[in-house]
C-alpha cells in the first residue's frame, strides 16, 4: 500500500546514513553499487537518487573518505569508505538505533518485550 511505502520511506530516512556506513564498512563502494547493495538487503524503497546527496553530505561532514579508481573498461569511479570519524559515528548511531528500537518495541509490541 502507498501509505505503508510512505511510512517505510520515512522510517528509513532517519537511518539511511547508518545503513550506508554499514555497507561501506564491509568494503569501499561507489554510488550505484551502494544503491544495489541496499536493495539486495531488502531496502527496495531507497530513493535511488537520494544516495548521491547522502554520500555528498557524509563527505562534507567528514564521515567518509573518497578516492577514484578505474573500473573495468569504464571511466574511473568514485569510491567511498568510512573515515575514522565515520566509524565512530556509525558505532554511536548503532547504539542510538538499538535504544530507539527497544523503546518503540515496548510501545508497539508490549507483549513481545515483556
Amino acid at each position, binding site marked *: 500500500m502507498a501509505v505503508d511505502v510512505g511510512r517505510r520511506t520515512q522510517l528509513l530516512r532517519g537511518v539511511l546514513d547508518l545503513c550506508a556506513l554499514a555497507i561501506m564498512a564491509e568494503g569501499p563502494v*561507489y*554510488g*550505484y553499487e551502494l*544503491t544495489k547493495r541496499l536493495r539486495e538487503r531488502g531496502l527496495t524503497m531507497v*530513493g*535511488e*537518487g*537520494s544516495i*548521491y*546527496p*547522502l554520500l*555528498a*553530505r557524509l*563527505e*562534507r561532514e567528514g564521515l567518509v573518505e573518497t578516492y577514484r579508481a578505474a*573500473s573495468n573498461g*569504464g*571511466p*574511473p*569511479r*568514485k569510491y567511498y569508505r568510512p573515515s575514522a570519524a565515520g566509524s565512530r559515528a556509525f558505532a554511536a548511531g548503532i547504539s542510538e538505533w538499538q535504544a530507539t528500537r527497544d523503546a518503540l518495541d515496548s510501545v508497539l509490541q508490549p507483549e513481545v518485550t515483556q
Partner: protein
Amino acid sequence: MNEYVAECRREWRRLGVSSPIADEMAAELEADLDEAPSLDEALGTDAADAHAFARRWALERGVVPPPRRGLRAGLVAALAAFALAAIAGALLMTFSSPSHSERLVVATVPQTVSVLERPAVAAALMAAAAATRSNVTPPPPVLRLATIDDAGVDADTVGLVLLIVGLAGFLPLALLASRRLVLRRA
C-alpha cells in the same frame, strides 16, 4: 556526455558550483549511469527531474548556499506591505478626492434641502433650480459649492503619497520575485 548528466552539470554551473567540482560530480554520475541498465533504474523518480536532483546533491555537498528562507519570507512581507500601502492610498484618494470633499448644497433659505455628492447631478439640479426660479415664486433654492470636509485635502495628499510609495516598492519587488521564480523553474 549523457544528456541527463549534461543537464545536471548545467544546473550545477547555474547554481554557482565551480567548474572542477561540477566536472567531478558529473564524472561520478556518468560512470555510475554507464553501469545502470536505465536511468530510471539508477535514479528512480529523480530521473524525471535533473534540476531538482542536481540541486539537492549540490546542496548536500555544501557547494551552493542553502536557500535563504528568511529572505523569501521578507520578500513576501515587503510585497504585502507595499501592496497594502498602495491599496490604502488608492482608497484614500477615491474617498477624499476633491469631487467628494466639495459638495454642492442645494438649499432654500434658511433651510438646507439636500447635499449632493455627484457633480453631474448637482449641475442638473442647478439647471433645474435656474428653471424653477423663473416659474416659482419665492423662496427660490440657493445653490452653492461648499467644501464640507477640509481634512479631505490632507487625506488626499496622504493617499497619493501612499499610492506612489506602494507602487514604487511593489512593482520592482514583484519583478524581482517573478524573475527568481522563473529562474527557479528554468
